[in-house]
């Protein structure tokens, strides 16, 4: 009896005592981006888990090298074909893998396999059957991040969950509208370059140029008209190019558009310091507004326009941009109007404020054009 007791006890102590917890459990990371009938993404699996699943350590020395991982790609891919099944309503997707890479995470090095899948028809619903390591480590889970139609969802795959089903809801028109409206407002607020361009054109709107000097406009009417013209021209111009770019009619390299946007700010600001165009600044607003539109479009390209709600999202985004822009105009211009007759405004804000804007824009220009 006594021996029997002692037999187990060395072991008992290893289990009890203070609570042990260190590593996170085994996770695979699956990222999928759905586009029509196609999926692109990657799966990430700890090398140790890869070894457990298919045996990567060819020379059995207890170490998996990069050479061994590359050599083990075929069995690995075959294993994944059997344990990661994607399907749409029309049937299973055909999975293909690109050459393996690696990624470092806290608990060790992970293998990183880019994948693509062709699912036959446009995906409205995605079925994922994730059974990686189900026999070897039931606590293994797949952490999924799924991007579809401009929305991201996450889920935990594996375990006893079985096949999981994901609705790739075409974003409802209203939610898309709100989301893109917000993105538009946010972009104009965070993309200070567009605002500075507009402000450079609006600063002189409350003044008139007479005998090489800035003088205050005597009444609100002309100032108001100036502002409306500039803002409308800018809006019209960037709406045109934004739409063209969003629907892929025209594409310009972002380095070019970003550099020219910076240049446009320099020109608009310098025009306040050394006035060349004093009447009809709306023409500058229109001409360069065309380029700013391409700048806005780059944000949309990053977000992607949701299928089925492309037009409404585009309109919403544009409306958001206008809203943000108008808010700034409404906040700044009454103040400018009130201050227009002061020396501070005519001799301070106009030349020095504009110079500061030009300097900042020059810095952007150099950064964007040369780096």
């Amino acid at each position: 009896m006594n021996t029997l007791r002692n037999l187990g006890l060395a072991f008992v102590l290893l289990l009890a005592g203070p609570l042990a917890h260190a590593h996170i459990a085994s996770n695979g990371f699956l990222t999928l981006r759905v586009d029509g009938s196609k999926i692109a993404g990657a799966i990430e699996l700890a090398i140790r888990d890869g070894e457990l699943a298919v045996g990567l350590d060819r020379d059995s020395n207890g170490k998996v090298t990069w050479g061994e991982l590359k050599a083990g790609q075929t069995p690995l891919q075959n294993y994944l074909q059997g344990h990661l099944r994607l399907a749409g309503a029309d049937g299973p997707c055909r999975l293909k893998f690109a050459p393996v890479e690696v990624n470092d995470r806290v608990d060790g090095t992970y293998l990183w396999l880019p994948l693509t899948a062709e699912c036959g028809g446009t995906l409205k619903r995605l079925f994922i059957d994730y059974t990686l390591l189900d026999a070897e480590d039931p606590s293994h889970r797949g952490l999924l991040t799924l991007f579809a139609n401009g929305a991201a969802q996450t889920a935990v795959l594996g375990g006893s969950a079985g096949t999981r089903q994901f609705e790739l809801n075409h974003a409802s028109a209203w939610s898309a509208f709100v989301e893109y409206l917000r993105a538009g407002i946010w972009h104009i607020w965070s993309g200070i370059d567009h605002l500075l361009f507009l402000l450079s054109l609006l600063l002189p709107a409350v003044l008139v140029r007479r005998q090489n000097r800035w003088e205050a406009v005597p009444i609100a009417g002309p100032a108001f008209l100036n502002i409306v013209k500039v803002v409308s021209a800018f809006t019209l111009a960037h709406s045109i190019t934004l739409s063209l770019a969003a629907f892929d009619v025209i594409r310009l390299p972002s380095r070019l558009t970003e550099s020219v946007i910076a240049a446009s700010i320099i020109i608009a600001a310098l025009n306040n310091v050394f006035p060349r165009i004093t009447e009809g600044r709306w023409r500058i607003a229109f001409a360069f507004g065309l380029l700013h539109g391409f700048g806005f479009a780059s944000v949309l390209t990053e977000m992607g326009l949701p299928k089925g709600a492309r037009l409404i999202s585009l309109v919403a985004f544009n409306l958001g941009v206008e809203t943000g822009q108008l808010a700034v105009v409404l906040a700044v211009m009454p103040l400018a109007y009130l201050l227009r007759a002061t020396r501070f405004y005519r001799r301070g804000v106009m030349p020095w404020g504009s110079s500061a804007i030009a300097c900042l824009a020059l810095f952007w220009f150099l950064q964007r054009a040369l780096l």
Partner: protein
Amino acid sequence: MRCRRNQSRILRGWLLRLAALLIAGGTSVALAGPYVPADDNEVLAEVSAGTRYSDVSARRLARGRIDVAIPLAEFYIQQSRLNGDLRFLGYAEAVLAPWVKQTPPKADVLALQATLQQSRHEFSASLATLDRALAVRPQDPQALLIRATVLRVLGRYPEAGAACEQFSRLVEPRLAALCIESLRGLNGHLESAYASLIQVSAQGWLNSEKSWLYSELGEMAVRLGREQEAERWFQQDLRLSPTDFYVRAAYADLMLQQGRSAEVLALLAGQESLEPLLLRIAIAQKQLRDPGLGLSCARLRASFAAELQRGDAVHRREQARFLLEVLNQPDLSLAAALENWTVQHEPDDVLVLVHAANAAGNPQAARPALEFVRAQGQSDVRVAAMNPEIAAAR
């Protein structure tokens, strides 16, 4: 009453905000992302015995033979305990799976299953499994000891004491003393429990038993404020089991408390792959303004985010400390510490909660923990130092 309402509101929102913070928030240093190694001979991972593909035959054998399954599961659980790797618990689970479903299940299998659950902080599940194990075999020392451990973590000391009593009748006196005295150290008899554990001679003990003794003594000494003695116990334990990350973490906490951040980095060098140790490294780096902080922070963020997505609760206490001591987010930290307190009642859980509540300017929020401490007569100089009320009561 108002305080209570505030707390529940904090609790409702904290998970979302924490998720947002961890996943999106202020990633000053991004992890590098995938790359192609330059050298074919670069070692990407080491795979230890029992985790190789070639071990598949043993695992297959275990499916049909319980005399293979039990030792193999024990081996995996030992490995997880030794090197703190939760993956081994998964391997043990795989080996046990067919035997847990068997009716009626064997007590050994159930005790192992309960151990797995305890290690994953699934405490109620673990207790339920232990009940089943003890129903099959009421005199099972292993099940009784795990039961005592789980109940102790939950702060249910009288029940833990009962399990210890039963355990004591089945095992040698030294183990009985360890179970009982370490519990007495928590419910009002710290000084005398510490004294009597020191009296116990460790001669002839197994290394695993000595290691348990030293880590208990070290933690008791910390709570007594006898820092030099604590350091000696921790060092003794580390000499005995250098891979014991648990005691290494406790030792690092002692050093952090004494402002010995540079020594913490030396103590934990090369142990960055264990999250609790990486947390201590990050805290030390922050105090030293070490440039390595960005990377440590990004890695902790990534692993806590993964844990959060999985819905695991293994590192709640660490999350609260990370939020407070690395990210300077006292409100979120307080919410995490409160959430942790609803589950665990260890001295370090009290400490984290009091610390977070003070930092958040809401010391009242730590009331449940302080009431628990008072009711149990628990003494801990670290808590007292942070809370004048407790200090005055002493």
